[in-house]
């Protein structure tokens, strides 16, 4: 029953995040969905990733959203016509979910009763060290991209000032 409540609340938060017109409130709904997803991950037996998701997904990303919305400024909540007509978008999303449900739900049983005995740190640092390398490269690339964007914006502002 507890899991059912968690899943229902998570889906409700995600729907509100996508549906809302105010950006700041959408960011807060997204943080709620992240926190509930982290609880679900913990219940699924993945506490390490749950903690990281809670701190990064619900914490850091929300702070970044609020920061970006404050800098960019929130546009007035005008009801704009969507690029794809809303009924078509709903039908496409429902078809995708229905297809996924038809493929995944009937085969939803544990393929193996054997639980992986290794610790998370061992799997991360020894078995999947290439992933760690990829993460480091991604971090460096992300930092360089943000620095490049900010420097370009500052140079543009300086040019306009002159």
């Amino acid at each position, binding site marked *: *029953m507890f*899991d*059912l409540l968690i*899943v229902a609340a998570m*889906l409700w938060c*995600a*729907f509100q*995040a*996508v549906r809302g017109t105010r*950006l700041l409130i*959408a960011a807060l709904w997204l943080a709620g969905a992240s926190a509930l*997803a982290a609880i679900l*991950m913990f219940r*699924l*037996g*993945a506490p*390490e*990733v749950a903690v*990281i*998701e809670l701190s990064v*997904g619900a914490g*850091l*990303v929300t702070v*970044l*959203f609020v920061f*970006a*919305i404050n800098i*960019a400024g929130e*546009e007035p909540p005008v009801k*704009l016509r*969507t*690029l*794809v007509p*809303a009924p078509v*978008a*709903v039908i*496409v*999303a429902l078809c995708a979910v229905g297809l*996924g*449900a038809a493929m*995944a739900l009937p085969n*939803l*049983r*544990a*393929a*193996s009763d054997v639980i992986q005995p290794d610790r998370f740190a*061992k*799997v991360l640092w020894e*078995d*999947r060290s290439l*992933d760690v390398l*990829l*993460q480091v490269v*991604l971090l460096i690339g*992300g930092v360089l991209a*943000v620095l490049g*964007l*900010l420097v370009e*914006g500052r140079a*543009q502002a300086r040019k306009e000032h002159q």
Partner: protein
Amino acid sequence: MWLSLPFLSAVGVLGLLGIGLLGLLVTRNLIKVVVGMQVLVKGALLALILAGKLSGQVQTGQTIALTVIVADTIVSVVALALAVQVRRQFGTLDLQALSTLRR
């Protein structure tokens, strides 16, 4: 079966993927696009952990999910920085207006 944790998690995964897809299809705001993408990625993360649990390899699922979290965070940071610059340059976050802008 209906109230078991794997079944409910699978429903959550499918729901998050559907909601994220719907958000990406209907939104016109650049920052809301990032919100829709975040919802999609949450579904993918849960799917990875659920697959790890069902195959008895929870730690491998966790490791791959960690990589996805790092990649997703960096993509979000870059996309938000880009949105801020677009707003400064063009004064709007509307995708329709941006796609028809002439400099």
